[in-house]
């Protein structure tokens, strides 16, 4: 990042940091959900964008984080941020054995397998009494949205930082190599299994950490909220809209998407899903690689001529 970019990033962070002190409740909520989805999109982008393993089940780790935090706060009376941290680490730890098994699958099999995993977790939480089963889990009141906001903002910035590092590191190159051709990457000496499991674990850590904040934000969690397929879809669409496997794609896609989504939700609550799905289809046809690569191409073309 050059100096102007760094300055702009700093200004943005400062503005986001003082935002909850200045804005009204509705706008803070909106900002929180935006940052949450952008952070989720960054999490998804590591395994699905850089490593090329499309997953429709990362929300499972989010749900694990939410429920772990909920239980630790409600039953063990932990301070919620410690609980959320634990939730993230649990999700990340689970990702290693799960990744070892699931990452043998490829393409649509991996995508659907992960979807099945997340759905199984959702069904299990509705059946286990400890998690409040289908009726949900209440968290003790008293937590503030401001704390959740800063927690989520910090994770989002961390996720962007992690992505910048991945994009420049040898690890990132290994991921991109195995995305293009796993066999060739393997013959060239990339430890393919290790690289993709590491990417998978990072892609689980981020939603895992975010889930705890979301549980506090809702003050009440139930399986359909913690394993929300709408949140999952939204973050995937954001990453695709912005540009899969790019550093700034999830952010650009996230900001554009939230604006559209908010306008749609307010004006057409009935047709929201329909327009959302239609938009995704249209985007894939018009901008198959996303906004960021399209702009980069345009800029490169301008420089050449």
């Amino acid at each position, binding site marked *: 990042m050059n100096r102007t970019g760094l300055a702009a990033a700093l200004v943005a962070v400062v503005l986001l940091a003082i935002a909850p002190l200045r804005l009204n409740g509705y706008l803070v909520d909106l900002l929180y959900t935006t940052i949450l989805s952008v952070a989720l999109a960054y999490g998804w982008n590591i395994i699905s964008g850089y490593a*090329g393993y*499309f997953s*429709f089940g990362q929300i499972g780790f989010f749900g694990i984080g939410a429920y772990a935090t909920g239980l630790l706060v409600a039953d063990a009376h932990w301070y919620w941020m410690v609980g959320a941290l634990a939730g993230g680490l649990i999700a990340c730890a689970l990702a290693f054995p799960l990744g070892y*098994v699931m990452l*043998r*699958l*490829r*393409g*649509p*099999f991996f*995508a*659907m*397998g992960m*979807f*099945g*995993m997340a*759905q*199984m977790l959702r*069904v*299990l939480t*509705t*059946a286990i009494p400890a998690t409040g089963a*289908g009726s949900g889990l209440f968290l003790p009141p008293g937590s503030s949205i401001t704390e959740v906001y800063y927690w989520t903002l910090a994770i989002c910035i961390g996720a962007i930082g992690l992505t910048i590092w991945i994009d420049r590191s040898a690890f990132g190159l290994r991921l991109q190599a195995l*995305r*293009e051709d796993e066999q060739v990457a393997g013959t060239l000496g990339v430890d393919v299994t290790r690289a993709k499991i590491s990417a998978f674990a990072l892609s689980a850590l981020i939603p895992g950490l975010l889930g705890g904040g979301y549980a506090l934000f809702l003050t009440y969690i139930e399986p359909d909220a913690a394993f929300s*397929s709408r949140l999952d*879809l939204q973050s*995937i*669409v954001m990453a*695709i809209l912005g540009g*899969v496997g790019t550093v700034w794609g999830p952010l650009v896609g996230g900001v554009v998407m939230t604006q559209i989504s908010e306008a749609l939700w307010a004006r057409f609550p*009935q*047709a*929201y*899903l*329909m*327009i*959302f*799905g*239609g*938009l*995704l*289809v249209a985007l*894939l*046809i018009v901008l*198959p*690689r996303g906004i960021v690569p399209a702009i980069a191409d345009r800029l490169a073309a301008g420089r050449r001529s």
Partner: protein
Amino acid sequence: MTIALQLAINGILLGGVLALSALGFNIIFGVMRVVNLAHGDFVVLAAVFGAYAFAQFGINPLLLLPLTIGAGFVAGALIHRFLLRRLPGEVASAEASSLTLTFGLSYFLAGAGIATFGGRFVSVPYLTGAFQLGAIEIPQARLLAFVVATLLSLLFAYVLRSTVVGRAIRATSQNLDGALACGVDVDRVRTLGFAIGTAVATAAGTLMSFLFNLNAQQGVLFTVNAFAVVVIGGLGNYTGAVLGALILGLTESFASYFLGATLAEAAPYLLFILVLLFAPAGLLGRRAR
């Protein structure tokens, strides 16, 4: 013993309809290597439409079959022509982008269904009686759905086996380059395959409305069912799909009796993940993946 027999009969009758639905899913994967995530939404839309037509106009859903089959055929052809075919053809991203496209399509169809028919769960209260065989009950509607689904599956098998179109479809699925070399118009075959697959899905949906209470958002259940069936039987293997459907139907029937409806919801997921991991080519599949 009676209970086991009863559950087995329910499972087999359900399996027959699941098999029809899965055949549609399978043909689309066969000709295009596309996992159609909107499959279940076509099933459910046809089911909800059938229930709506029955409630509003008293139309016998069996008479609706030609209409839903026709509508599914046209919709499938249009979706392939104007959407899937426009996707960029780069090998690395083609699979992912077709998956994402049908994912978006699925939400579009579910949303459109909710906007048109509302969110109420509906079914067709048609032939609600049952045949008594000793202590065993055979629900008439289920039996009818099973019989019609089996007839349609046999028709499907005939088209695939013994017609020129069917041969072209099978050739495209088995060996793309070979099919091209023999002068098969692969592009047209794909449109046709997608259209037939969608038509089979809507036909299955019309029959599903006899069996289930549904609203337009339940599509994902049927996508997962079809995916599970096809994975169990081996992708692209039509005999395997029928076997897989029977296994899944029996599993669901027994699981919902012994574990309750909530936990039984996890059965198809568990089944297909296990098969993917331990028999990745499916129970009858040969091709390595």
